[in-house]
């Protein structure tokens, strides 16, 4: 066991049939979720609210970042081609689970010519077709830096375009796959900015970043056109991933949230268990003034 954890690294592990309803539907539709693959500590809470973040394009990633528990393709391993029926099944999940806001993410697929952008777009459209009142958020990979991929996804008109910067620039070499890049991720966000989609990013703390580095990253995100940011605590998914260097205190997260708002983010959420997709619906309601 990795404990003892600080007192604020604590969640509820509740019971009830709603959890099983979510699991049953997602299993039935053979959909992957980042909740499961990333071993998210919010999963019990979210699934009991019938919320989940689906992960399309398979559950094997072509990259290996040191913080992530999603399985990486082994050397020479061929990943499955995109399942042409998957967008329809995501739409069906949105409908059967009664989603008012769908969050769709994916593994990184450097092996596909378009990085999976077309599949993302078809998935957004499938949800919109089945649930016209459901807002749609995408959390995309960097498409290998090919900004045409961003354009493809935006053409499907998601309400929120998310791409996570994940960490501060200095820690990219130790935390991220060599194919990722701080500047590359900023260019993805920049390409998405200026349209109708809210542009959102997230970073995790607890890898030893300084206050100044966090603020500099927020400034870079803002300059790239990001209007929404989420900041959370990194929690080690398993023994093969990088150890936590620091548990950032709740009051420090509050200070970052305030700082982000003061800098000009329209929406900012920071806290130990904040994740880019955690309670994502609140952001959409807030920014779009729904409800």
């Amino acid at each position, binding site marked *: 066991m990795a*404990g003892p954890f600080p007192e604020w690294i604590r969640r509820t592990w509740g*019971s009830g049939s709603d959890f099983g309803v979510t699991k049953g539907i997602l299993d039935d539709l053979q959909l992957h979720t980042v909740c499961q693959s990333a071993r998210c500590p919010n999963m019990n809470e979210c699934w009991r609210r019938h919320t989940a973040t689906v992960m399309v394009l398979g559950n094997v990633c072509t990259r290996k970042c040191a913080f992530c528990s999603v399985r990486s393709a082994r050397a020479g391993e061929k990943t499955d081609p995109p399942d042409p029926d998957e967008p329809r099944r995501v739409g069906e999940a949105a409908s059967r689970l009664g989603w008012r806001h769908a969050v769709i993410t994916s593994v990184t697929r450097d092996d596909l010519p378009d990085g999976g952008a077309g599949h993302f777009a078809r998935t957004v459209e499938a949800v919109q077709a089945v649930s016209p009142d459901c807002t749609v958020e995408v959390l995309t990979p960097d498409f290998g830096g090919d900004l045409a991929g961003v354009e493809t996804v935006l053409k499907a008109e998601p309400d929120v375009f998310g791409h996570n910067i994940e960490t501060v620039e200095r820690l990219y070499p130790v935390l991220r796959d060599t194919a990722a890049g701080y500047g590359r991720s900023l260019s993805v966000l920049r390409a998405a900015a200026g349209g109708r989609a809210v542009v959102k990013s997230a970073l995790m703390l607890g890898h030893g970043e300084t206050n100044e580095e966090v603020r500099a990253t927020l400034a870079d995100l803002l300059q790239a056109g990001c209007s929404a940011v989420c900041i959370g605590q990194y929690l080690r998914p*398993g023994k093969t991933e990088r150890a936590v260097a620091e548990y950032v205190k709740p009051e420090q997260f509050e200070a970052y949230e305030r700082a982000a708002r003061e800098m000009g983010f329209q929406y900012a959420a920071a806290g130990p268990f904040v994740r880019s997709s955690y309670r994502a619906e609140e952001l959409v309601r807030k920014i779009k003034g729904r409800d």
Partner: protein
Amino acid sequence: MRYEVTLPELGDDSVDRATVTMWLADEGDIVSENDDLVEMVTDKASFSVPSPKAGTLVEKLVDEDDEVAVGDVLCIIEI
């Protein structure tokens, strides 16, 4: 009626067990629905297990430091 409180599914298929850190209620305590009963720890975080029912905690079936599997009975509540 004796109601068995079990360790619910966490969701994460790789987490099918957890270790009891400490009890937050004692035998004889009257508990409301959603009152925290016991704290568990996994590799990733601490978790409190709320009571699924209101009643009286009559018997604890696991001790602190015990490793518990999903579905194991943690305690009995008289409802």
